[in-house]
């Protein structure tokens, strides 16, 4: 294989993997902490993409300006959804399995609502708002500037989340809840405040990924679905509630998809992702990095 082609594919894998990491970290927090199997996670990515797109189109400013306020809006939406739906769901579910199954159904409901609302508001497919569409050359390797930007922001966001969890007291509380939900409550961690906040954070991260994608790809109301599946694969690869594992899983999935489709055909991308999911669930249901 040509060396430059190899570098091209690696960069493409990293860009895909970076987006997957941001999406999966949010889902991992929601699932790991609250057993919310949020199958509508990708829908919030779609909402983030459409919101960013609309604001850019109206104002003509750079999308980077709108990503932070859009994330705040999705965070608030997350608090609202948690208050309206998931709090009651957690209170009325007798055990974690029932909670998972019922949150999955709720997730499908949210998916129907979000996708069709987007269809009503924005209509069908839309060409994205290409931003920074010029090529950057590193010697012989050319990369689109916007993809590099996506990679940089995604990596920064993932790193920031890891640091938040590792270095701050808040992060310690969240890690405590991940390891031992009951124990965390016993030592005085206020789950009633932290659960909605983490759910909202998940939505904000999905929105961030959507905002980044709106600079590169076309927008459709169902654009989020493949990312939900990818996020599920990533958290299965990385292990439940395992944040560094999820990042490693995201990069790994990016590599498998990019190289897999290069050697076979692009139409097999979904087939490859699902095969990875099914294989991992069957062979290592606790994740690749567990001992």
């Amino acid at each position, binding site marked *: 294989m040509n060396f430059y082609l190899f570098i091209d594919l690696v960069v493409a894998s990293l860009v895909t993997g970076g987006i997957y990491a941001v999406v999966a970290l949010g889902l991992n927090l929601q*699932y790991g902490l609250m057993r919310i199997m949020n199958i509508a996670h990708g829908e919030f990515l779609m909402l983030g993409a459409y919101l960013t797109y609309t604001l850019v189109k109206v104002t003509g400013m750079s999308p980077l300006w709108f990503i932070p306020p859009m994330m705040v809006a999705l965070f608030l939406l997350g608090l609202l959804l948690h208050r309206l739906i998931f709090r009651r769901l957690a209170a009325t579910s007798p055990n974690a*399995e029932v909670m998972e199954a019922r949150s*999955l*159904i709720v997730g499908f409901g949210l998916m129907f609502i979000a*996708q069709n*609302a987007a269809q*009503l508001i924005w209509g069908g497919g839309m060409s994205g708002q290409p931003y920074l569409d010029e090529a950057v050359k590193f010697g012989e390797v050319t990369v689109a500037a916007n993809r590099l930007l996506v990679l940089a922001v995604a990596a920064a966001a993932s790193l920031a989340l890891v640091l938040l969890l590792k270095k701050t007291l808040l992060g310690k509380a969240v890690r405590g809840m991940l390891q031992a939900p009951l124990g965390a409550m016993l030592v005085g961690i206020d789950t009633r405040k932290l659960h909605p906040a983490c759910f909202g954070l998940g939505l904000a991260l999905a929105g961030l990924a959507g905002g980044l994608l709106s600079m590169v790809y076309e927008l459709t109301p169902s654009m989020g679905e493949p990312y939900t599946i990818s996020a599920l694969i990533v958290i299965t690869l990385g292990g439940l509630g395992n944040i560094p594992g999820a990042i490693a899983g995201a990069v790994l999935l990016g590599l498998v998809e990019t190289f897999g489709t290069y050697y076979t055909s692009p139409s097999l991308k979904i087939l490859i992702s699902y095969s990875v999911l099914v294989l991992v669930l069957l062979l290592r249901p606790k994740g690749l990095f567990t001992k």
Partner: protein
Amino acid sequence: MKQGALFLIAAALLAALPALDSPFVLSMALTCLMYAGLAVSWSMFSGPTGYLSLASSAFFGLGAYCTAWGLSYLPWPVVVMAGGLAATLFAFLIGLVVLRLRGAYFAVITYGLGELVKHTITHVEKTYAGTVGRVMTDTPSSNVVYWTVLIIALLAVVTYVRFGRSRYGHALRGIGMDEERAATLGVNPMRVKLLGFCLSAWFAGALGAAMAVRWTYIDPHTVFNPFIVFQTVLISMVGGPLTIGGPLVGALVFSLLSEFLRLSLPYLYMILLGVLLIVSVLYLPNGIAGHDWRGTWQKIFKRSKAADAVTEQRHE
């Protein structure tokens, strides 16, 4: 006995429906029966065990593809039977491994396997047949299709009741309550679950095989549509997965709703479905048929009296 008589009368009335000679009524009844059959077959396994299976689309699609491949060579009843058997075989093969998983993982993997089958068939058809879809020729008349679907749906209802009362049905419910306890009491969980899963798959596959000829042209995206399983789960959950009346009432309501709203206001219809799904999970976890309506009624209208009584007591 009374229920048996009611069932026979309903079956006879439904069987006589083509005599009305109204294509509209027949087509609506067909959709309704299809979803009733799917919902009952789904409830057969997922109701008592609590295993949330999202494989119905895969079973349905496999059945439909059996028809697409075999209709020109085989007689109609054989095609429908084969469609069901293909789904059963698939359920058996995946059941051996996926039935070890529980909770959301089980749901996700059954959904993932369905998508995997869809994309595999798309790829195989593209590579070897050169097309994605298939045109159906020599299809049976719409009355024959209707009676076939009716028979499968009635069979599903009978099987649901008989299976639920058999020792396997009791064992499945035991697994749903506490799998380890059931195993301790001498139930072989894997065998019983596999039996229930395969049985429920047969009906979904046979329905897919029978319904395939309704569309003169099928492709993987129509017959493996995840919407089929969503609507099925919704009907069972909203109706009540632990009762036989639940899925039937649910199927009737949703077929009517979808017939009138889906064509005129497709997006709004889907939004409404989403809202209903969430509301039913939150407030009617046992479905319409399984809900304690008397309790709710008393809660709403007698709470004031109870509260008064408490205040009076305090004053005394």
